[in-house]
């Protein structure tokens, strides 16, 4: 039981980072990034290609994460511009449909060029006991990275001027502008951060299981569910929802069996959404 729960937490931390990337971009500009998981997979494949061609894994992973971060910035500066000019539901719908299209482009390109490419990062050495459970080194490193990334992000948001500016745009965009904050610039930076987080998720997942080129849609969906259950726009909510859903998913997969557990997870998400449309820690 402890072993299963710990595995759930490992997965949940990854879910959490996935959801945070989505929730930030939605909170700031109303964009539901349906290409988030595909961006993650793109980072994994870039990393895998670099490792294949002889780069050290750390360098390759870094380049993969940066590449996707740049992609996020580019998307924000190009495709998303007309979206930000729209208001309300029109904006959300246009952003969602455009990112759906982008997701398919990335998915299609990866499946066309690298159909059998996969990223798997292994760590040498014996398992390390945690609470009496022998944990694989990959899982521990992955979790450490997730926790560090989450911690750094929360600290940046809470205590830096730019982090405060980011939260201000989420809470009241007009107010932010009157304080001299440029929402467009904040959105661009955060889209880049969100891309980097997506890349980081792919790297950490690759430490626990292989990431293949067709994983994008699944990652997007899980990230979306986490973000929605946590309350779109709420960073702590996304972390919380990620860990809860990760644990629930792993435990039910262990005791019930795989397909029912996924359906249960989806049902749980839908139910949460219906009971609390703003999510667990939704704001506004």
């Amino acid at each position, binding site marked *: 039981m402890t072993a299963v729960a710990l595995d759930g937490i490992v997965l949940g931390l990854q879910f959490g980072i996935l959801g945070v990337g989505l929730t930030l971009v939605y909170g700031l500009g109303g964009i*539901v990034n349906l290409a988030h998981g595909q961006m993650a997979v793109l980072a994994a494949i870039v990393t895998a290609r670099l490792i294949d061609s002889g780069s050290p894994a750390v360098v390759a992973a870094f380049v993969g994460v940066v590449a996707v971060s740049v992609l996020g910035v580019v998307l924000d500066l190009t*495709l998303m511009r*007309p979206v930000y000019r729209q208001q309300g*539901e*029109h904006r*959300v*719908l*246009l952003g*969602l*449909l*455009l990112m*759906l*299209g*982008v*997701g*398919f*482009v*990335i*998915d*299609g*390109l990866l*499946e*066309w060029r690298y159909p059998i490419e996969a990223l798997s990062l292994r760590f040498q050495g014996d398992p390390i006991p945690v609470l009496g459970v022998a944990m694989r080194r990959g899982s521990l490193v992955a979790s450490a990275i997730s926790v560090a990334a989450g911690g750094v992000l929360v600290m940046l948001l809470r205590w830096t001027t730019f982090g405060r500016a980011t939260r201000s745009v989420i809470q009241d965009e007009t107010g932010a502008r009157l304080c001299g904050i440029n929402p467009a610039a904040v959105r661009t930076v955060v889209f880049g951060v969100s891309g980097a987080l997506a890349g980081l998720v792919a790297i950490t997942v690759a430490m626990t299981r292989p990431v293949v080129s067709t994983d994008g*849609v699944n990652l997007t*969906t899980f990230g*979306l*569910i986490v973000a*929605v259950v946590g309350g779109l726009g709420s960073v702590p909510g996304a972390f919380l929802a990620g860990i809860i859903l990760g644990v629930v998913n792993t435990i039910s997969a262990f005791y019930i*069996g*795989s*397909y*029912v557990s*996924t*359906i249960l997870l*989806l*049902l749980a*998400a*839908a139910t949460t*959404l*219906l009971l609390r*449309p703003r999510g667990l820690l939704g704001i506004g």
Partner: protein
Amino acid sequence: MIRAYAPIAIATAVLACVPALFAGSPSMMTVVTAGLVFAAYAIAFNLIFGSTGQLFLCTGALAGIGGFGSAILSDRLGVPMVLSIGIAGAAASVVGGALSWVAVSRSLGTIFTGIVTLTFSLAFQNFVLGRGDLTGGENGLRISAGSDGVLDHQVAPYYVFLALVAVYLVLFRRIQRSRMGWAFRALRDDEVAAKLAGVAVARYRIYAGAIGSAMLGVAGAVFAHHRSFIGTTTYGFANVDIRVLVMVAFGGIGSLLGPILGATAFTALDEVLVDYAQLREVLYGVVSVVLFLGFRRGAAPTIVDSWNRRSSRWSVAKRADSAPEADSR
């Protein structure tokens, strides 16, 4: 009255001539028949999304309920095929109506409706994969019912689907011209006015969800019996939902013949690109991005419009929200 249905008659007559071109080629008949199935899906999606603004990202799953449902009913339980198609369509209708009811009663906006239905899509896919004993799982499901009847011929199935499409178009038109259609046009113009007029918008949304889902279920079921084999991708999200969305966007969201136009255009495009099948997904992604970005009202109506009025593309795009039916005149 006659004018309102004339476009349907003309479109049906034109489509009826298609087999004359390809009758000699079984593979081409398969392609154009599949094109009609997508036209049927697109009309149903257009009713739910285009007319009443509910973003159902579970077109494939609802069609799949029809397909797998009817296949299991007829092959496993010996239900006569026509009856099993009806039952499966009703099941899809109940599910779609329920989704719509949830969306309306919790007043979920566009995205939340989209996310809930997307979640349902995935749950359905997981079910199909998980219950391999019923659905064939990854290996797919061979269907014997219908394999020796009219649906197995080359040309006849085409006309079966054409009849289905014609019926769907008439249904779409009738709904458009009913109180319900007026209600949604009023809503688009002025939400407050429509509410004050006592229009039961919520109820109409659920009707549209249920009717559209029934259309999807029946089309999916007939398709299953026609193909005699269905797999996980037959009703998959990438294969159905994204294509239908792009087709409707191309033809003009909310317009009567837009889905036909979109289905025709993309079926033709698929054939042209048959040697580059791997790139199809990329292409669909690119096309959808371009469509949503530049032609919010649908490429076809926009192009026709700018041809007619020689007005700039941008002014047409801006008019998009208030002009629901361009090609009905």
